[in-house]
């Protein structure tokens, strides 16, 4: 075993140690531990080891906690005296100290196979995604082996519906669909409503461009969503659940169907669940390509077989929802948290996160960042930690310009907000929103006016057309933004955008309209200068607005003719092996010459 590294033909194993730096662990001398560990490693001359500090890992009773990766070996109740043994045996000889390791009983992180991928996973905490990428999502046995349906069994064995609701309330869990309404309260309202049948709905109509958390969750761990819904049905007294999912997610649908069949066979769904007199079944309903159906009243209309148009609230779905009956709607991520809340307890759950936002949040990290993907972090993690520590920073030596959260309903936060914590209130205060979890990193190559236009184009396209402000207003905003990006902006356009945006925000019927102007208003707020440059100087500093670009060929040109061949407008002249020239009048600014030139001779400005 000592020669494990050689055996494995690994150049060098780089050990990454994570030391819990939560308040309780600090109280238990984790700081001192850090020093001892550091000293011991230096002492023994162990190479390729780095020590990281993490936020509270939620295992305070067994703190201080030390995790060694690769391998995710977890040591608990670590004392200074244990350090030399751990360093020698584990880091030098490659043999974990079995005596000191702990197997945690918490649902999350138990089978967390991060292996060597510590940079990416080190700061993450996986509750929603606890089984994603771990178990075979198409095999209920895998789910059962990771304590699947244990929360349901617990609820049915010794919890009354009101106990379940109390636990959810205690957890401080808030709706992960974007608005952040306290989940427990929503459950309580629906439980109290009396009007015959009740329904439980899982909103899986994830439609933000660039967001795929729900898809990932269902594809990776469909049973956890079902288990959450069954528990919800028990808590509010519903017999029927519906998963409303985008038709564009065929694999997720297939896995969900498979999971439902398996759950039915095992007696977790259907009549007399686990031998009790509680009966509950779930049905899948497909969306058909309408973003607005993520709004709960529109979603209800869509399930009812109508055009997915929202209606004014009140009455809220908790009182009058699907088919006019009390209806509990939560999104995929919210439901996936429920089994954890039940098994690990509301108290534990609420120990994670910030004062007002508890637990974790899943983000779809994308855009100009090295590591794109699905990440889950405790509330309170900063944007900087996500972008730089987890995301690995901006590739190609470019500078960060902004972070966009909340998709078409959210806002763009510039660099100075990098230390903003992820929680509902802080993000709102900074001028964006939590949203459902899209997080797009934007570098200096992106034009903020263009980005605002992109989002408005999206909402305009997805507007249901029911209410005037959204239907007509976003159209006018798009027209103004379009002319600005075409270099035809007029003085006063920014003010018009602000006026329309403000009105649409306050006057629209549903959340889609009310948040549609956010990307525009937040880019105006944070990047007003870029707008002004477009309008007054006809200049796009990111070089993205084609109409304002001019392409020229510089001295590096060797006359290879590649640009001439590719130019669709025939705008490039030049003899072979001589410097070529672009005729600005003919140029349609498609940028193909720029892309094709191997000598960086074409420049755009």
């Amino acid at each position, binding site marked *: 075993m000592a020669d494990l590294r050689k055996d494995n033909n690994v150049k060098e194993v780089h050990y990454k140690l994570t030391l819990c730096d939560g308040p309780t662990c600090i109280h238990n001398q984790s700081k001192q531990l850090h020093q001892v560990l550091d000293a011991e490693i230096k002492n023994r001359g162990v190479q390729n080891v780095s020590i990281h500090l993490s936020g509270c890992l939620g295992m305070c009773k067994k703190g201080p906690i030390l995790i060694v990766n690769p391998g995710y070996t977890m040591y608990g109740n670590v004392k200074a005296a244990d350090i030399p043994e751990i360093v020698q045996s584990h880091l030098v000889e490659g043999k974990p100290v079995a005596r000191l390791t702990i197997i945690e009983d918490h649902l999350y992180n138990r089978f967390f196979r991060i292996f060597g991928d510590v940079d990416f996973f080190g700061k993450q905490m996986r509750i929603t995604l606890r089984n994603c990428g771990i178990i075979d999502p198409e095999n209920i046995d895998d789910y*059962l082996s990771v304590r699947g349906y244990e929360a349901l069994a617990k609820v049915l064995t010794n919890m009354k519906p009101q106990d379940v609701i109390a636990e959810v309330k205690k957890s401080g869990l808030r709706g992960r669909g974007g608005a952040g309404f306290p989940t427990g309260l929503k459950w309580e309202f629906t439980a109290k409503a009396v009007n015959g049948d009740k329904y439980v709905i899982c909103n899986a109509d994830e439609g933000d461009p660039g967001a*795929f958390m729900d898809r990932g969750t269902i594809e990776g761990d469909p049973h956890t969503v079902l288990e959450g819904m069954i528990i919800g049905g028990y808590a509010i007294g519903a017999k029927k659940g519906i998963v409303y999912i985008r038709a564009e997610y065929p694999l997720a649908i297939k896995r969900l169907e498979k999971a439902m069949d398996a759950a039915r066979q095992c007696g977790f769904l259907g009549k007399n669940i686990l031998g009790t007199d509680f009966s509950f079944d779930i049905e899948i309903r497909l969306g058909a390509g309408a973003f607005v159906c993520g709004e709960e009243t529109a979603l209800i209309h869509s399930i009812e077989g109508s055009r997915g148009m929202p209606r004014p609230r009140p009455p809220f779905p908790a009182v009058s929802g699907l088919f006019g009956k009390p209806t509990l709607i939560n999104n995929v991520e919210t439901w996936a948290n429920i089994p954890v809340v039940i098994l690990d307890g509301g108290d534990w759950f609420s120990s994670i996160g910030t004062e007002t936002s508890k637990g974790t949040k899943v983000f779809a990290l994308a855009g100009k960042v090295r590591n794109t993907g699905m990440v889950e972090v405790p509330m309170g993690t900063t944007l900087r930690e996500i972008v730089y520590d987890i995301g690995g920073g901006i590739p190609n030596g470019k500078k960060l310009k902004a972070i966009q959260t909340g998709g078409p309903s959210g806002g763009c936060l510039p660099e100075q907000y990098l230390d903003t914590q992820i929680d509902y209130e802080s993000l709102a205060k900074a001028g964006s929103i939590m949203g459902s979890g899209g997080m797009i990193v934007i570098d200096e190559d992106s034009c903020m006016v263009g980005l605002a236009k992109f989002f408005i184009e999206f909402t305009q396209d997805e507007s249901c057309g029911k209410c005037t402000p959204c239907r007509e207003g976003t159209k006018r905003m798009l027209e103004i933004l379009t002319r600005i990006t075409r270099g035809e902006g007029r003085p006063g356009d920014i003010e018009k955008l602000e006026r329309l945006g403000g009105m649409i925000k306050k006057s629209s019927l549903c959340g889609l309209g009310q948040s549609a102007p956010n990307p525009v208003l937040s880019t105006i707020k944070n990047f007003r200068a870029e707008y002004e440059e477009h309008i007054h100087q006809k200049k796009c500093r990111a070089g993205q607005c084609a109409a304002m670009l001019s392409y020229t060929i510089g001295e590096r040109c060797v006359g290879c003719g590649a640009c001439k061949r590719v130019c669709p407008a025939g705008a490039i002249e030049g003899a072979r092996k001589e410097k070529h020239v672009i005729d600005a009048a003919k140029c349609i600014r498609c940028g193909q010459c720029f892309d094709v030139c191997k000598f960086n001779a074409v420049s755009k400005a």
Partner: protein
Amino acid sequence: MVTPKDILRKKRAEAVNRIISKGYLSTKRVYVGMATCEIAAGSRDVMEVFRQAIANGLVDVYLSQKGCAGRCNLEPTVEVVEEGKIPVKYGRVTPERAREIVERHLKKGQVIAEWLI
């Protein structure tokens, strides 16, 4: 009285047995990412390589699929967990790479370090 918890305990024991009977206790376990994003990046073909290898006589290997762990830009991913050794995760696995992993890692026990995440 039999409680729901009791029923579940029994079901779990059965589930674990079923997993084991499928060869979970093999020395090597291979997990191929099979979410939409992984499939888009080509994981179906990768899975097929491992399936073929087992069909063609590769023994003592337990093959399973998994959902997306979130490593989008490095997909498809393949994890190899080997009894008594440090488990590894390969990124951007192509069918060619998968064949190499079969030959070198699964058959000869050599970890291909440069493809690790």
